[in-house]
């Protein structure tokens, strides 16, 4: 009958409607006393006054009774908690310096932890913004896949309900205000089923729009529709000039829902339209000359697992390698598989992020150690107070509880401040641009983050509060009643804990500083890698002219004129163009057959990176022509086909021979003569070795989109307005897709490394500071408490340096122990960093020694200041005070 909820309801009533309950109680008492009075008057013949007095006496103290009744109601612990809280707040306010120090330490520690966790939450924990996103898998064929292969994989995998290839194209929008480049995701009709999305307006792609002749349709993003088309619904069915990927005009067939984010969009990109992946009908895996797809994504059937899908994909690839041995490598087929989409998106950042979380955990531990130390010292100072309170009858539990409530209040204040710190830091720092991490565009503190923050605070209370609380109320309190205000020194217990703290803080700081030092030296090694070009003073401008007016030789003439005009600008030293921005993951790789070499088995051709350049490009970006000659104006469409290769390719194909003059057949059937060999460039990332590369002149391989490189005589920004004006005057319908200094592009390629390095360095510095403060605190307290002893020694003839040596010895022993443990722990943990490191081993002795030296230097200062103070103890003064 009285189930737990009605009992709870009674409790809550008792708590929140205490007045009412008290009133009922009063009525009950009044009735009792009245009835008792009447009974006494009747039975014993007493006067009303006398009867009433006896009735009250028999009842006992009404107030006392009320209290015990309230206790039975279970109200008191709540009231007592509020009282404890008030008490704690008051006692913290009495020690503002301590409270401020504790709050700052906690706010930094908790703030850092919350900030890191917010990033982890956004990147790894939040589900992808698609319905049943856990069923999305990325199909990994293990090799480049054309559309025909992507289709075959989808059909050969029964575990997948639907699948789609994905690739990204830059289309050029004209006729709707200023010409603009629209990043467009090309996908199959199944895209909408795979990602569980319906257009907000209009319809999805139809299966027959795969056919090249019917694929001139487009679905706009909500944002693009609002911005460029004024949110006009009649745009559906309209033909717009959206040029590229085989079409100049496209029919708008739909608008995506607001807030739909393109899957697998590269960081920094902004996909604003969707178009069908298209190819001529009737092509097979062998004959499909459409572009490779970047990704293949499928949706698992209900009940199917990633593992089943993976094994089916492997089987399909192995079967295809039998049918198309020249296109599907049997060996590669065995590595084919599938991965959950979220895993594949965040897989390569998971380890570094978890390392950051572990690092921030250590920082927090340091913060807690410091606080525990502060509380211990404060507890030692307050032993007198505790002794008095214990003598007055406060139980041990009560003393422990008061202390814990104080810690709780501190953790709460620190936690709130920490969340604020995290918020401010995250919104002030553009994590998205800085980190190059996926999915961090909109960081927000959601419930997971807040739960994490609350959990951290609770852990902190236990970590820094419990020991001092137990300690402060333990054992020999009575002795402190007798002791004077200034006791002989800290108890042995206090000293032991203090020195354990020094050792622990040193060890933790050692691990963090070593990790930070490793990443820093790795970043330095990376930054000092010669990229292969001279990036300073170069302005890179990516142009996407519409192919309608700039297709074929018209584009070649456009770039020729543009480059000529740019070279004539006063601030410009050199200009040239290339079709792909270096230091990004954009890449074209084409199969080729080189002179003196035979095709592989089953007629397979090797592939190499392929770039289209104009005369002047190598000079503009400072890539040396090592042998032979550069591309020249005379290498026109009707001239003999020529090209250059890089040093790596020359060494690979013709080691020790002259490469110039050899013939390479692109696709096995488009021959060009090698006219020169250029230096290697780290095109993709500084940490990757340069790939073999081919360069051909634009006039002989016309493409419309190019990156114009202008080498300025001064800062690249000084020529920016002139360059922009020149582009507009040569082609006013040519949109500028991107314009930045080449050095910024190179910097961006190191964004992730730099991000992780700066975070870990920050943690390292934080660890050093917290560690130093902690060590200083312990030492200052120990020395301060032993001042009497030191003074006595000096009065008895000890020298200042002797006293200092004694003080130093007490600090150095735990420091050495902490260092030793820290070095071992660093050796054990830095291995986790191995994947992030470049040019430095995870146990590089130079780095470990450097980290230890930094730590020792800081520790010596932290220990040295209090020790010097010990040496200055005045024998007379100190003896007098007790």
């Amino acid at each position, binding site marked *: 009958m009285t189930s737990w909820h009605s009992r709870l309801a009674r409790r809550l009533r008792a708590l929140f409607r205490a007045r009412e309950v008290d009133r009922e109680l009063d009525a009950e008492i009044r*009735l*009792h006393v009245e009835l008792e009075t009447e009974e006494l008057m009747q039975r014993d013949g007493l006067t009303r006054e006398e009867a009433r007095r006896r009735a009250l006496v028999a009842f*006992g103290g009404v107030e006392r*009774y009320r209290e*015990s009744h309230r206790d*039975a109601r279970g109200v008191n612990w709540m009231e007592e908690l509020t009282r404890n809280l008030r008490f704690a707040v008051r006692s913290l306010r009495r020690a503002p310096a301590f409270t401020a120090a504790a709050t700052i330490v906690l706010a930094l520690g908790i703030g850092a932890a919350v900030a890191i966790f917010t990033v982890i939450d956004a990147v790894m924990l939040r589900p992808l913004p698609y319905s049943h996103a856990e069923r999305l898998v990325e199909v990994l064929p293990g090799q480049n896949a054309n559309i025909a292969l992507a289709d075959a994989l989808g059909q050969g995998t029964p575990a997948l309900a639907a699948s789609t290839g994905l690739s990204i194209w830059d289309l050029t929008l004209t006729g709707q205000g200023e010409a603009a480049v629209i990043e467009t995701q090309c996908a199959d009709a199944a895209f909408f089923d795979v990602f569980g999305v319906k257009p907000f307006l209009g319809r999805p792609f139809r299966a027959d729009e795969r056919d090249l002749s019917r694929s001139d349709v487009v679905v706009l993003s909500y944002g693009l529709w609002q911005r460029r088309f004024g949110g006009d619904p009649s745009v559906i069915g309209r033909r717009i000039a959206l040029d590229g990927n085989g079409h100049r005009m496209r029919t708008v067939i739909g608008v995506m829902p607001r807030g739909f984010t393109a899957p697998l969009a590269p960081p920094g990109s902004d996909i604003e339209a969707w178009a069908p992946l298209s190819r001529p009908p009737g092509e097979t895996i062998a004959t499909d000359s459409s572009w490779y797809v970047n990704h293949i994504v499928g949706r698992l059937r209900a009940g199917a697992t990633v593992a089943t899908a993976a094994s089916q994909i492997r089987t399909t690839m192995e079967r295809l390698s039998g049918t198309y041995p020249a296109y599907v490598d049997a060996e590669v087929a065995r590595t084919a598989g599938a991965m959950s989409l979220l895993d594949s998106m965040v897989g390569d950042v998971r380890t570094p992020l978890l390392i950051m979380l572990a690092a921030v955990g250590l920082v927090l531990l340091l913060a807690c150690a410091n606080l525990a130390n502060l509380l211990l010292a404060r507890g030692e100072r307050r032993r007198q107070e505790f002794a008095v309170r214990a003598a007055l009858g406060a139980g041990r539990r009560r003393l422990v509880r008061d202390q814990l409530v104080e810690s709780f209040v501190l953790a709460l204040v620190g936690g709130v401040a920490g969340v604020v710190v995290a918020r401010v830091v995250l919104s002030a720092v553009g994590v998205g641009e800085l980190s190059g991490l996926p999915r961090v565009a909109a960081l927000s503190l959601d419930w997971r983050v807040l739960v994490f923050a609350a959990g951290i605070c609770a852990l902190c209370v236990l970590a820094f509060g419990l020991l001092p609380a137990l300690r402060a109320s333990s054992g020999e309190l009575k002795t402190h009643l007798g002791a004077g205000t200034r006791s002989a020194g800290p108890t042995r217990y206090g000293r032991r804990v203090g020195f354990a703290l020094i050792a622990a803080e040193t060890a933790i700081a050692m691990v963090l500083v070593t990790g930070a030092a490793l990443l820093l030296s790795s970043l330095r090694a990376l930054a000092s890698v010669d990229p292969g070009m001279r990036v300073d003073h170069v302005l890179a401008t990516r142009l996407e002219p519409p192919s309608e007016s700039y297709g074929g030789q018209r584009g070649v003439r456009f770039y020729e004129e543009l480059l000529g005009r740019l070279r004539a600008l006063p601030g410009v030293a050199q200009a040239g163009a290339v079709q792909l921005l270096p230091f990004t993951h954009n890449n074209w790789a084409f199969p080729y057959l080189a002179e003196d070499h035979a095709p592989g088995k089953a007629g397979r051709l090797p592939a190499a990176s392929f770039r289209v350049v104009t005369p002047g490009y190598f000079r503009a970006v400072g890539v040396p022509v090592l042998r032979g000659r550069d591309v020249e104006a005379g290498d026109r469409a009707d001239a003999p086909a020529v090209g250059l290769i890089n040093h790596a390719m020359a060494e690979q194909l013709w080691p020790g021979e002259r490469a110039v003059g050899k013939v390479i057949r692109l696709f096995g059937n488009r021959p060009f003569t090698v006219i020169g060999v250029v230096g290697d460039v780290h095109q993709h990332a500084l940490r990757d070795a340069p790939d073999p590369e081919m360069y051909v002149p634009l006039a002989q391989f016309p493409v419309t989109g190019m990156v114009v490189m202008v080498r300025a005589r001064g800062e690249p920004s000084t020529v920016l307005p002139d360059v922009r004006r020149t582009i507009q005057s040569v082609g006013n319908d040519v949109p500028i897709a991107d314009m930045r200094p080449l050095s910024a592009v190179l910097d961006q390629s190191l964004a992730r490394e730099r991000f992780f390095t700066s975070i870990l360095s920050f943690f390292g510095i934080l660890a050093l500071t917290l560690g130093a403060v902690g060590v200083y605190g312990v030492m200052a307290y120990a020395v301060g408490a032993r001042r009497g002893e030191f003074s006595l020694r000096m009065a008895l003839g000890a020298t200042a340096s002797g006293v200092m040596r004694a003080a130093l010895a007490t600090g150095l022993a735990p420091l050495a122990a902490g260092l030793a443990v820290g070095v071992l722990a660093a050796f054990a943990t830095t291995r986790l960093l191995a994947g992030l490191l470049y040019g430095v081993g995870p146990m590089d002795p130079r780095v470990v020694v450097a980290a230890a030296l930094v730590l020792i230097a800081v520790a010596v200062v932290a220990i040295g200041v209090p020790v010097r103070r010990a040496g200055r103890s005045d024998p007379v003064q100190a003896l007098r005070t007790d």
Partner: protein
Amino acid sequence: MAQRADLLQGTLDLLILKTLLLGPLHGWAISKRLRQLSSEVLNVGQGSLYPALYRLEDKGWISAAWGTSDEGRRAKIYTLTAKGKKQLAAERSAWRNFSTAVNQVLHAT
């Protein structure tokens, strides 16, 4: 100290339940009935009666409602619940065991 209080408290609970077995009563009537039943020997400290009533209500052994007393006054009237009857039976046998044991010890020599 705590143990002694528990024993007393448990005994008081048992007595209240027993009293209410005869019918619903308000607080004063319970204390009076207790006195009568124990032939004036047990004068329950009235200060501990009401907390006990509250505790029993909280456990669901008795229920309380505002009504009119035999004397025609507004009073909070307590009734034994089914759960309370079961508890009473259990406590009675426990008490019987306990007092038997005490008697045995007392009369052993």
